[in-house]
């Protein structure tokens, strides 16, 4: 039974208004001028290039200089103070540190990737690398909020919330926005995937550990399958009786919410059970190795969720905040994430899902070309254990599928990867572009709150035409 049929049946006994209100609610507005908060799918502003988004957020700020933006010119400056005038006095850092990594041209397109990303590099012809991202803050929280919610302030909806708000969710048994975590240091995630001032319908739902994947998904102890269904049946019948006596149409939505909850209870465990995947698939994502298992599991889950109709899947992996031991830590993080991320793109492509799915790999900022060699007051870092500090003025990300060019590099930075010198892309521009790709116009996707209309892109944002396929 489809949801529409279900709703039609629910509404059948009540009279046409309930159904009409529910099905029509995407286009109607509530008293505050906002669209009604229906879970149903809505049509986009324009034909979309992508139906789903998988956002791999590399929290902490991966070093663009060691992964995606080669700077051979830095060799001759290695160990010397940065050129006069280049360094902003608010950024505290030491002398220039050339990347110890080796970059090679990959694929037919010849896009350069670091030797720390062998698997990702193998997909060079499918990836669009943007080397000219820039952001407004060099501190984690504001920068992560800006990247995920379009503002440095707390309390605003995240990208995934906006996309679901704009498009609704086609999934019949899962929420439209799912969040998966791996790595250490996981605080702040709920704010980064929050619904802000949008109804909590649009909140990112975290799929957690295997034994408790979605909060309160499992029946309480003592309530078996039959008792649970009996609770729901009695509940539905009583809710219907009350609907008949009061005409309160919100009850129709409440009944539907409970039925969807019940379907989630059945569907989620199956969806999260990876035992049906082939050995080759599992190995491809790195599920058979300790290092790659956590992120690989999340990548594979992301594919399964998208297959089942989940609109927006967000993965968090942290932390890439390498103030010291940069090289060692980067090796470790790349070991954990490179193979699974590449497997995800390849798997999506093989299944014909990549055309409809936009994959984004990004952190909140890049890292300084100068070494950070004094981490704490008066305590120099041991040679070979230097790190890089936060760097908001230029950094790199990659995207794949969903209407972006493959084998393409967009934008350029100076010889130190310090400033953008060509085709700068601000976070607002990236957001405008992502919304454009899923069929939404970033200036028209608004919500009235606190007395005014809010957008993901605030008062800025241009679609980056240069990366559109």
């Amino acid at each position, binding site marked *: 039974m489809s949801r529409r049929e279900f709703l039609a049946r629910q509404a059948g006994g009540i009279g046409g208004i309930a159904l009409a209100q529910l099905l029509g609610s995407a286009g109607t507005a509530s008293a505050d001028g906002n669209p009604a908060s229906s879970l149903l799918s809505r049509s986009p502003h324009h034909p979309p290039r992508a139906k789903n988004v998988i956002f791999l957020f590399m929290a902490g700020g991966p070093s663009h200089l060691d992964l995606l933006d080669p700077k051979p010119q830095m060799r001759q400056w290695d160990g010397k103070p940065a050129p006069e005038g280049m360094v902003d006095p*608010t950024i505290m850092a030491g002398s220039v540190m050339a990347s110890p990594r080796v970059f090679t041209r990959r694929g037919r397109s010849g896009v350069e990737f670091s030797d720390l990303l062998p698997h990702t590099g193998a997909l060079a012809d499918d990836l669009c690398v943007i080397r000219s991202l820039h952001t407004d803050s060099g501190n984690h929280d504001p920068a992560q909020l800006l990247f995920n919610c379009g503002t440095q302030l707390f309390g605003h909806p995240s990208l995934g919330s906006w996309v679901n708000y704009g498009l609704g969710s086609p999934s019949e048994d899962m929420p439209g926005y799912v969040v998966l975590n791996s790595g250490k240091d996981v605080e702040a995630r*709920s704010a980064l995937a929050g619904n802000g001032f949008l109804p909590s319908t649009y909140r990112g739902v975290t799929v957690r550990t295997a034994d408790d994947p979605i909060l309160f998904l499992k029946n*309480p102890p003592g309530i078996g399958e039959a008792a649970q269904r009996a609770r729901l049946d009695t509940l539905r019948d009583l809710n219907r009786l009350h609907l008949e006596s009061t005409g309160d149409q919100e009850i129709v939505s409440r009944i539907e919410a409970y039925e969807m909850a019940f379907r989630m209870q059945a569907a989620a465990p199956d969806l999260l059970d990876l035992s049906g995947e082939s050995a080759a698939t599992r190995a491809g994502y790195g599920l058979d190795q300790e290092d790659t298992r956590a992120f690989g599991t999340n990548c594979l889950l992301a594919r399964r969720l998208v297959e089942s109709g989940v609109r927006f899947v967000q993965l968090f992996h942290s932390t890439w905040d390498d103030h010291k031991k940069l090289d060692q830590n980067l090796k470790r993080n790349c070991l954990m994430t490179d193979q699974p991320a590449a497997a995800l793109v390849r798997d999506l492509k093989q299944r014909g899902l990549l055309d409809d799915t936009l994959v984004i790999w990004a952190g909140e900022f890049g890292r300084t070309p100068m070494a950070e060699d004094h981490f704490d007051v008066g305590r120099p870092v041991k040679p070979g254990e230097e790190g890089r500090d936060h760097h908001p003025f230029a950094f790199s990300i990659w995207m794949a599928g969903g209407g972006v060019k493959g084998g393409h590099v967009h934008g350029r930075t100076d010889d130190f990867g310090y400033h953008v010198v060509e085709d700068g892309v601000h976070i607002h521009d990236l957001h405008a572009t992502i919304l454009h790709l899923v069929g939404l116009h970033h200036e028209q996707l608004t919500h009235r709150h606190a007395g005014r209309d809010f957008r993901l892109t605030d008062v800025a944002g241009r679609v980056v035409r240069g990366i559109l396929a």
Partner: protein
Amino acid sequence: MPPRATFPSLCILAGLGLAGSPASLAGDEIRFNRDVLPIFAEHCYTCHGPDKAGRKANLQLDRREEALAERKSGGHAILPGEAGESLLMQRIGSGDPDEVMPPPESGQQLTADQIETLRRWIDAGADYEPHWSFVPPDPVAPPKIAGAAHPVDRFVLARLEEEGIAPSPEAPRATLIRRVTLDLTGLPPTREEVDAFLEDTRPKAYDHLVDRLLASPHFGEKWARWWLDLAHYGDSDGIRLDNARPDAWRFREWVVDALNDDLPFDQFTIRQLAGDLLANASVSQRLATGFLRNTVSDRQTGNADPELGRVRQVVNRTSTVGAVWLGLTMECAECHDHKFDPVSQKDFFQLYAFFNGAEEMNINAPLPGEMEKHRPARRVYERKRAELIAPLATRLDEMQAEWEERMLWTERNPGADHAWGRAFELLVTSWGRGRGEGQFEGLMIIKTPPGQRSAQQKERLQDYFLKNGRVVAPEAFAKLKIVDLSKELETLAREVPPLSRAQAMTQLPEPPVTRIHLRGDFRRPGETVTPGTPAVLPPLKTETSATPTRLDLAKWLVSPNHPLTARVTVNRLWQELFGSGLVPTSDNLGTRGATPTHPDLLDWLATQFPERGWSLKEVLRVMVTSDTYRQSSDDRSALSSDGRTQQDPGNALLARQAKLRLSAEGVRDNALAVGGLLNPTVGGPSVRPPQPESVTRENTRNPWKADEGEARYRRGLYTFIQRLTPFVQFANFDLPGSTTACSRRERSNTPLQALNLLNDPAFVEAAHGLASRVCREVEADESARLEHAFVLALARRPSPEEAERLGRHLREQTALFETAPEAADTLAPDPFPDTSAAASAAWVTLASVLMNLHEFIHRE
């Protein structure tokens, strides 16, 4: 249709003949505020409004003299009486895409009706009116309506009569007592209270009920949450570290007490914004300024920019006051002149200047009994401390003086010296971290000349220096064993019974100069401004000094001729009781806000509020004793005057009450109360009820250590608000973010809420509680027990169909659990009196069904 650029709610009312409907349809005369302004604000002001920087073609339509002025090219945008000659009409009616206004790419085209409205308005003389909410309300007498005595009803009925709609009948008495009890106290009525009210045949029974509820100590708890949403209260710093603020609750306590005492709203305002500036301010008055302490604190190190953090806090305080008292979106004017409201960037920074000189400072706020224990031990401590420090005193003072000087130098020269940069960063991020102290308090003390520092300030700064001042002279620090001294002092201090503290504000002796932040960037200072209020509002009078203070600002907000404060506040009270305000945009009474549905009623209430001594309880009493409030909330969306058109689906005309989903805390409180588990203690520190382990681990720096015992069953008001990872049941039920003022909560309806109520152990426990008390309180008679359970949960008796269905559930589930004794034992380990193990388990599931009903989590 996807969500488009949203339109003001008045569009929704179009066709009903309500305020805001196009006069061209209604056939009335054109009124600027009602008919023209919404068109201008929505379609024209972005480029031709109050914002100088955004203005195009040097055309300003929000001021009559500008709009009528001769254009450089000749002609007039608006020529009164001559629509045909007005350039504005030529441009909006043009068929040429290069000529037509608004430009096609804006997507803001006018409809034929709107163009006709503007034509008629210009022909009639193009008269402007000031925006309604900027003009003080006039005393209005309620219209005379036969059979209606209550002023509120007379306003509402007058409007309904115009539309030919009859009001709804009074709600059933059971609904009424549940509604008013939940609305005034946030808790459901007890069975005894329900029965007593149903049996009370006195004509004034309802008024007596209202009297009792307004006097209940739970009144302050319920309405404190209303106020704390506006104050955006939280128990932690927010931002990444999100450290606890263990004393934040003292402000919450102050609000609960103030509301229970019905502290007049003018005093309520003055103490929260400027209690520290009152003559001989008491501890209670000073801690009321904890209102201003609900800003988040960024205590991260690593490129921290302390001034940015401080500026964000001052901006937040400014915007909060703008939102809470003025009902305006002041924050728009942080970066540019307001696009729609006559609030300039200068206005914003004049308001900002009031708070720029206010600094965070925690104060001693001893609870009863503390001072007696503290004082003697403290004397001993002071003596021992002096003895310990004496041998090094001179050397320490020298080193500290140099350290202070270098700190100030580092603030002025960021990045100049790495080690000092880090030391400075530490000072402004770690001061009082985890204790909720003002993070810039240490720096503030350094900036206070030593002669003006209090003894407490001196001691606190010295403590900090001894612990963290090593950078000034690492060798000397090691040689003099200063770390050991610092530790010794700490040990000594732990022997003194502490005094409780509270968050408050203080005024800097020399407030920083306020300059406009060009484009909202504090690194680009513009014109210097002094404290002042927006030019469009009544002038500010100062009582004391030449430069107005926060106290002057607070008094101005509650001055008799202020057009906004009373309207904004009564509108929010109305919203709390009816689901929507008389101005539906309770967060915006500016030009882009909605037009009042009942302007005269709003103004009557706004003038009554100060007249009744600014008493919140009295205004609430007026509202809840009206027939309008007491109406049935059953649906009337099919209301129709002509048999076809649906009339007033949004209930703007108030022909019925509203059914409102309980708040996040209300859902919890209701379940605890009905389950007989609620701990009704009023006041006290925040608590952490249990939640799933995967959530408690989420905030790794601040793990959620669940309370045990009675603390688990306290009202939701007392649940610790960990800003970054709020209590998960609350997050599921639309707890607002605690970073900016929230004037109206969302009320969503989601599958996660269903899972939460069905499966969360806390709600299963509440269901067990309900089943258990029903079986204890009533003998083993199925229908009597069912009725009792139903009345406890919903205050009303079940219909025969409802009773029949529940009875069937009970019998079927009893049979089911007879075949599954282990499951029965899990659900009800100790069977209830005169009830089998299987039936006990069935009762738990039945109670859980009742507590999942749509009706259970709504007030009808």
